């Protein structure tokens, strides 16, 4: 079961990364990136690294995303 879970998480990660690549709207890309970080956090929790998981949840999914959002607010949302 654990292995299935692991593989599913890895697949999920790759899919989210591709979704980030695909998104035309930068806001959508940044938000999907936050869910990428979140899945990463899940993966690390599963791998026995709760400290890193928490950091990723707080920093990767939280602060980084918010910084991206500010940058998008200050520039433009559309990718040409």
């Amino acid at each position, binding site marked *: 079961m654990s292995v299935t*879970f692991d593989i*599913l998480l890895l697949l999920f990660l790759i899919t989210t990364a591709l979704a980030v690549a695909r998104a035309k709207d930068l*806001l959508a890309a940044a938000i999907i990136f936050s*869910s990428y970080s*979140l899945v990463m956090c*899940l993966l690390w929790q599963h791998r026995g690294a709760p400290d890193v998981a*928490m950091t990723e949840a707080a920093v990767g999914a939280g602060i980084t995303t918010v910084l991206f959002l500010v940058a998008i*607010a200050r520039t433009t949302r559309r990718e040409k």
Partner: protein
Amino acid sequence: MQSFFWGVGIFLLVNAFACLWRASAGPTVVDCILAVNIIGTKTLVVLVLLALVFGRAMLLDIALVYGLLNFVITVTAGRLLETGRLAGDQS
């Protein structure tokens, strides 16, 4: 019980995977934000499941962190979408 929890975890993950399609396909950005928020809720539950599977109560803190930040991000993104600015001006 362990395998039941794993099963539930995998089931939720598959669900989240399905939500990802909505996040990616849109059609509007709000859909994307909503979908990601939902992925967040599902994943939060998976985090709690993992904490119980591993039998370490302290891992619940991570779920709590994520729950809070998921809320903050969604609100921020909604605000950005609504006004194009972030800081409010309520004097």
